[in-house]
């Protein structure tokens, strides 16, 4: 077993070696290096063929038409293009947008930008398990509402929103529905032929593909229109100009093809590992699982270890690569806004660790991590005055703290 152990698959994934092999074919002198937009020679035709094959692979995983896939630089750009592009195009119909408090920053910051441009944005509260209730959405729709943007799988806690039901509501009300699916490809089946989703963002690097490439699904029937953000050359039917990076696109195509082939076996294996992992942690005193217990993707475990600060636990777990909702791991000194949106107390948000298992996680790694976590939690609690007080039966909510 190699150390350190990577348990941060929600942040990014290693590129699958089979994907690397495909990409390399586009990066050599003998390889497929042409510009896919070159119509006048074989180099261009060959590159275009590779790009279109990749497009078909992406479309196949999510069951849509090839022509509905637009290449972008990643899910952040897809979110920007979808939200700003649709809001600006449909502005004459209304200026109200609905999203939620636990969206990715790419969505939240795009919405903030639109607020500066005069749009009004409603940020829905999830329930305490992290799910957006359809009733919440219905309650907040107004005459001026034009766009709804909600994520499929949350990147911190891994819970899955019911986009089928949410889509029924948006379609009935004539609203454009954007879904950020960066975390769900290869983990949850997506059937865009039946879902009433109009725009969907994808990322390659969360699904064992390369960084720097993503896609946006733009529905053709009923047709959704966008105002482009990047101009110059009219690539991707004018929605996203710029020379297509063949090697990146081929990488994403191959990664999504593998995701389609291996989703069910990957899920079965990763779920079993996660169950084993949780079994090894759940009996530690004062441990809380954050997010819905069942409506979640296979690899995610977001756990709060009460009375321990998350960053110190990460330091103690130095052979394990994980991330925390603790303020100390962020530049802002604020604990995770996602966990706070669930109504979690600040101290539990500070105490959270996100473990994300993936395709290359082994049972041996899980066993090693369980032992290390148990040992580190014991040691850090030995050091914690809060644990002391808890053991003495003191109610920490009633203590008057000297805030600083």
């Amino acid at each position, binding site marked *: 077993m190699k150390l350190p152990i990577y348990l941060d698959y929600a942040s990014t994934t290693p590129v699958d070696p089979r994907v690397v092999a495909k990409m390399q074919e586009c990066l050599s002198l003998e390889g497929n290096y042409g510009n896919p937009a070159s119509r006048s020679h074989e180099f261009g035709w060959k590159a275009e063929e590779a790009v279109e094959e990749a497009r078909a692979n992406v479309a196949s995983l999510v069951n849509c038409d090839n022509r509905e896939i637009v290449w972008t630089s990643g899910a952040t750009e897809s979110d920007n293009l979808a939200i700003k592009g649709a809001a600006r195009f449909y502005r004459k119909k209304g200026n109200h947008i609905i999203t939620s408090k636990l969206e990715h920053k790419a969505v939240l910051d795009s919405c903030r930008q639109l607020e500066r441009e005069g749009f009004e944005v409603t940020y829905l509260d999830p329930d305490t398990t992290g799910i957006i209730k359809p009733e919440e959405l219905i309650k907040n729709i107004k005459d001026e509402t034009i766009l709804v943007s909600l994520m499929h799988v949350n990147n911190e806690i891994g819970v899955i929103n019911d986009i089928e039901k949410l889509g029924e509501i948006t379609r009935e009300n004539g609203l454009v529905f954007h879904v950020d699916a960066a975390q769900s490809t290869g983990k949850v089946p997506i059937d865009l032929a039946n879902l009433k989703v109009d725009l969907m963002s994808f990322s390659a690097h969360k699904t064992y593909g390369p960084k720097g490439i993503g896609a946006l699904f733009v529905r053709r029937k009923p047709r959704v229109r966008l105002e482009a953000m990047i101009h110059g050359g009219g690539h991707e039917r004018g929605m996203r100009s710029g020379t297509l990076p063949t090697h990146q696109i081929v990488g994403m195509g191959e990664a999504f093809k593998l995701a389609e082939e291996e989703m069910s076996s990957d899920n079965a294996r990763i779920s079993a590992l996660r169950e084993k992992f949780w079994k090894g942690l759940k009996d530690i005193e004062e441990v809380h699982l954050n997010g819905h217990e069942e409506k979640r993707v296979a690899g995610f475990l977001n756990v709060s270890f009460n*009375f*321990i*600060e998350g*960053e*110190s636990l*990460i*330091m*103690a777990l130095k052979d394990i690569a994980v991330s925390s909702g*603790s*303020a*100390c*791991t962020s*530049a802002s*000194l604020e*604990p995770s806004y996602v966990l706070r949106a669930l109504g979690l*107390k*600040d*101290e539990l948000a*500070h105490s959270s660790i996100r473990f994300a298992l993936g395709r290359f996680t082994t049972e041996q790694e899980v066993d090693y991590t369980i032992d290390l976590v148990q040992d*580190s939690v014991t*040691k*850090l609690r*030995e*050091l*914690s*005055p*809060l*644990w*002391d007080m808890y053991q003495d039966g003191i109610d*920490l909510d009633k203590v008057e*703290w*000297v*805030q*600083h």
Partner: protein
Amino acid sequence: MAYSKKVIDKFEKTLKEPEKNSVGKWDPSEDDIGTGMVGAPACGDVMRLQIKCEAKDNTHVIKDVKFKTYGCGSAIASSSELVDMLKGKTLEEAKKIKNVEIAEALDLPPIKIHCSVLAEDSIKQAVEDYETKI
């Protein structure tokens, strides 16, 4: 989150051998104990510092120190560093300890300076608490 080597060393030493590194607790009601507790769980750090003192040559000297800290690695390292500075000092000397000394000793980055401020506050409180008893 890149830590200085000093923070990592201090943190790991404290975690590995808590007793040797003054982790612990005394009964705060004892006459020779001064206790300072600063910070709040909601902010992500709480430090409890205790000093054991004795009267000596018209003043009082810190004979021993114990602490427990809930917080990030830098907060734990800061408390531990403070403990080393305190042993054998008079109360007057202890009160003069400034957060920059701790920050410099550990190479704390600017974003972690508040950890050393907290450590400075904890000693002030502990001394004040002890002084109410003499």
